[in-house]
């Protein structure tokens, strides 16, 4: 086990950022800390890096007790959301910084910097200043800089958060491929469930300073441990008193066994998907169902028509708590 966080608590005044958090992060894997903003995931990452000190609890990295070590002695690579590029140094100098501090021979530094710039596809940008790079390039430079010192763990704090959607998607796939090449234990913080599901080997869901669930993306998606986790991982709706995913509902235009009769109250087309709202009880809130366009066309229904709804076999579902305002609305996919 590479990083062991044991009962860490961190308060800012009366606000509890981390509440007795224990997490174990395995070696050589890519782990996502996933959760809403202000949930404590960045604080946890910064405690691991030594950039924040925990009020209580312990952190060990690669078997070394690190709780009282300053950041410069922890041998972690840290990548910031806003790159933290050394503005007055060239790209190559940025990458070389950690090695120069360690007083490595000049030849070795040059060789290593060249190698890293190649790895992050910035070979021809070595002499530029960070201000002359795009956001995505700056973040790749920051990654090379963090990797230069051969850290035992690589920590990334919302690494793609400041980039636009397209670059973000490219860069996260690139990070996945990079990790497959270098295999350094990597932890990244994200509030984007799609990013976590797509890239990570393991996911730790953190909310309100506590760990809600940890496991592989499949485990977390298929058997969410709480309503919060289920709601956070994508759109949900309420059907017959249970929280379910809109695409896990089967829709029929005629009565079938175990299906519930409902009236279509709204039909919305969003790109390749049709979102249909139907309610069994005219007073109650509707249940939303996601269909493909082809399926919707075959049903031949419209607002005011009657349909029959049934939960698809094997779909994850759980009893809905009384409408809890603390649970945020469905996170934006993006």
């Amino acid at each position, binding site marked *: 086990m590479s990083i062991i966080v044991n009962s860490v608590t961190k308060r800012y005044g009366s606000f509890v950022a981390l509440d007795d958090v224990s997490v174990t992060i395995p070696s050589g894997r890519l782990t996502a800390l996933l959760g809403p903003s202000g949930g404590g995931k960045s604080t946890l990452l910064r405690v691991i890096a030594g950039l924040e000190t925990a009020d209580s609890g312990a952190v060990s990295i690669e078997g070394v007790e690190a709780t009282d070590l300053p950041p*410069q002695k922890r041998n972690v690579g840290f990548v910031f959301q806003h*790159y*933290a590029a*050394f503005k007055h140094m060239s790209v190559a100098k940025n990458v070389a*910084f950690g090695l120069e501090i360690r007083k490595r021979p000049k030849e070795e530094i040059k060789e290593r910097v060249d190698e890293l710039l190649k790895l992050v596809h910035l070979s021809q940008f070595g002499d530029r200043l960070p201000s002359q790079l795009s956001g995505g390039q700056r973040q790749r430079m920051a990654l090379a800089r*963090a990797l230069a010192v051969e850290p035992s763990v690589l920590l990334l704090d919302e690494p793609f958060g400041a980039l636009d959607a397209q670059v973000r998607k490219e860069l996260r796939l690139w990070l996945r491929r990079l990790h497959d090449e270098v295999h350094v234990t990597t932890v990244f913080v994200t509030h984007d469930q799609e990013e976590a599901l797509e890239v990570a080997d393991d996911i730790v869901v953190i909310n309100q300073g506590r760990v809600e669930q940890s496991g592989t993306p499949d485990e977390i998606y298929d058997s969410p441990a709480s309503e919060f986790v289920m709601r956070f991982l994508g759109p949900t709706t309420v059907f017959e008193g249970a929280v379910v995913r809109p695409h896990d509902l089967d829709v029929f235009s005629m009565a079938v066994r175990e299906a519930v009769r409902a009236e279509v109250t709204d039909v919305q087309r969003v790109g390749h998907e049709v979102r249909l709202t139907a309610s069994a009880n005219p007073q109650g809130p509707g249940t939303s169902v996601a269909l493909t366009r082809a399926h919707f066309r075959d049903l031949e229904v419209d607002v005011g028509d009657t349909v029959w709804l049934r939960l698809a076999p094997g779909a994850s579902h759980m009893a809905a708590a009384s409408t809890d305002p603390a649970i945020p609305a469905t996170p934006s996919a993006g």
Partner: protein
Amino acid sequence: MADTPTAGPTLTQGSRSVGSGAGRVTRQAIVILYLSALVVIPVALVFWNAFKDGLAPVVAALTDPVVVHALQLTLIAALWSVVLNAVFGVAVSLLLVRYEFPGKRMLNAFIDLPLSVSPVVVGLSLVIVYNVRDGILGQPLAELGIRVLFSTPGIVLATTFISMPLVVREVVPVLQEQGTDQEQAASSLGASGWVTFWRITMPGIRWGVVYGVVLCFARSIGEFGAVKIVSGNITGRTQTATLAVEQLYQNFNQAQAFTIAAVLAGAAIVIISVVAVLRVRVERNES
């Protein structure tokens, strides 16, 4: 300065095009008159008075031992003030921006005090603290054989006090703008606090420091009130350039007075030009 504005209506800025050509000329004339009356004419006359009888009186004044000593003393006081305020200014700025501590707001307010309090009051307060008879610091220092008042240390102290806020006020916003990300990145890469300061923090704030130092120097060479009180104004010993100007002028020694005044004004003009060039560089650096 009085560039003829390019003619033609400006379509996008309606309020400006309302002002006719005549109105604009009037406004510019008012500004130019105001600046001339307050700044340009008096300063120009200082130079004119210094040089009106040719170079001979100027050379004579600048070789007079009393004038030379006054200028030297001003330079020494200004250099000390710059060094002290640069070192402590950066330290205080770091303290104010990077750390939380009780009394921080009070410290922040105190920093501006020398700008708002009359220099004469500053001089008087230094006399109370450093006088040899019953000064809370003056007495023990006197026993150690260190004389502050009526000697160079007192002049340095007064000058430093007066120009204290200038470096801090220039460096604080630059430090705030810079943020802590780069410093944290450096420490996660293995840099100690000292290395981080010299290799990351200082390069980031260097133009702010230079700018503050230049302003501090300009303010220091012009200091009069506080220095007059703490120095005792002893000709040839504790008389700075500004004090010499006053005394020489009052003694009808106008040639010398205007020569020193011209040197001080010339230094100020050079400094302001440097600042103007620096400001452009700083702004370009930030963008």
